[in-house]
């Protein structure tokens, strides 16, 4: 129990940010017309590729002799970037189609 309280005490800022971010996410998405559900889903999907930042950190922090970390890090960067680039590109492509008809 003490461990838990100590944990909350030392990470209180993180916990604040987490909770506020949850509410922010809910508010930002709340009133979205159904028309945009598909692009929004793929856009959010691209955003979740932010995990690639972690993958890059893994590689930067690897010893050049540490083939295990480098290999897994390399694959993680490839997959993460694929998620980011592919996700944003396909979202843009979908939205481009909506745009054309605005005239």
């Amino acid at each position: 129990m003490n461990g838990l309280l100590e944990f909350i005490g030392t990470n209180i800022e993180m916990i604040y940010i987490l909770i506020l971010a949850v509410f922010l996410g809910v508010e930002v998405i709340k009133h979205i017309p159904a028309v945009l559900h598909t692009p929004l889903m793929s856009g959010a999907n691209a955003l979740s590729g932010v995990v690639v930042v972690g993958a890059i950190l893994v590689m930067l922090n690897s010893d050049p002799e540490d083939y295990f970390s480098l290999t897994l890090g390399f694959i993680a960067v490839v997959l993460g970037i694929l998620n980011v680039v592919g996700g944003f590109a396909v979202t843009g492509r979908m939205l481009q189609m909506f745009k054309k008809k605005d005239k």
Partner: protein
Amino acid sequence: MSISLSIIYLIATVSFIVGLKKLGNPSTAKNGNLIAAAGMGLAIAGTIFIHDFKVPPLIYILIGLAILIGSIIGGLMAFKVKMTKMPELVSLFNGFGGSSAALIGLVEISRDAGDKLQAMTIVSGIIIGAITFSGSMIAWGKLNGSLKSVINIPYHNIVNNLFFIGVIAFGAYMVTSGGNNPVLVVALLASGLLYGILFVLPIGGADMPVVISLLNSLTGIAAAITGVLYSNMVMLIGGILVGSAGIILTIAMCKGMNRTLGAVIFGAFGGTDAASDEDRKLGSIKKTNPSDSAIMMNYASNVIIVPGYGLAVAQAQHVIHELEEILTEKGVDVKYAIHPVAGRMPGHMNVLLAESNVDYSLLVEMEDINSQFKNTDVVLVVGANDVVNPAAHNDPSSPIYGMPILDVENAKHIIVNKRTMNAGYAGIENELFYNDKTVMLFGDAKDALTKLVSELKNM
């Protein structure tokens, strides 16, 4: 962390929030996407170039190579994909993001574990990443038809829940014991992967969009957890935004299909309701052919087209636009009625029709068009079923009772194009097909519409 990198992450985080906000409005969506993408580019570039590690050139080359490979493959996939295949693609990309999170966890657990918080983030990153990866791959397989749609595992609810508790307990043991025994780490990864498979396998193909949205949300949470591990705000906030936005989207989709999230996950459309349907007399159906349908539409003053899943599967979005143009030339007032969950995922029909250059203003949403059906001469239903089933209004025993539908039965004439008399994904009969005003035009949507168009051209 240097101050300049912190500022870069701050800018990137704000751009994610602004981008996501703008993505929610049709007129600003394109800018929103660009702003979020720019923020992401900034965060990635900042991470690579501003840090305190001593990095040999070889690693820079490797990182550059990885980014190059990922960008080329991702870009090609994004530009090559057919719009009807969008759900598969989102699912695939999502799986990649999840596996990236799991791989990071695998590397970090092999290093010195540090304190309990770090151990906890690493272990949960591996579990969630593994679940999203295998779950997304199963969803992808189901959507592209390489996996049989519903695979029944006996007692799957009990088995899954027990298994899930087991995975959590295993993870908790790993955290408290501080263990990084490679055998246990591999077992942890394997149990996460297996749970992802068990979780998605029993869920029906038509519910996949909900599952993908849920898994997408999970990938966001995995990214956020990795953000906690590195005390990295852009990952933390970006991930949480996706996590909570994903949950909201998931709930919105469930509402459109009149399902609760629990019903999707635990598969509540039982077989018991179907039995009572057989007793009821529904009368007989009337068949029609393309030439009669063409005549009906030619002499109508207004036509509403109701496109559905069948249109997307048959890739008939271009033909239907042709039909609409011919009718408009002949002086018929044509509109499209778009149900919120029409197509293969919510909002998908809008994307498909936009792809075939249908004028955006002709697409009318359900709430706005429902009052217009009673003044409509002909409604053409193409490959839609449950979203036009009057049972949603007048049969309290029906599993779709209470679901918002398009009130096509109020129109003067209804033409329904379907491949067969098979029930829709809810597995229930549709009394609309037996209505006196309804005629059935059987056949593949693309074939039937092509014939309809050529008949109309000859009139």
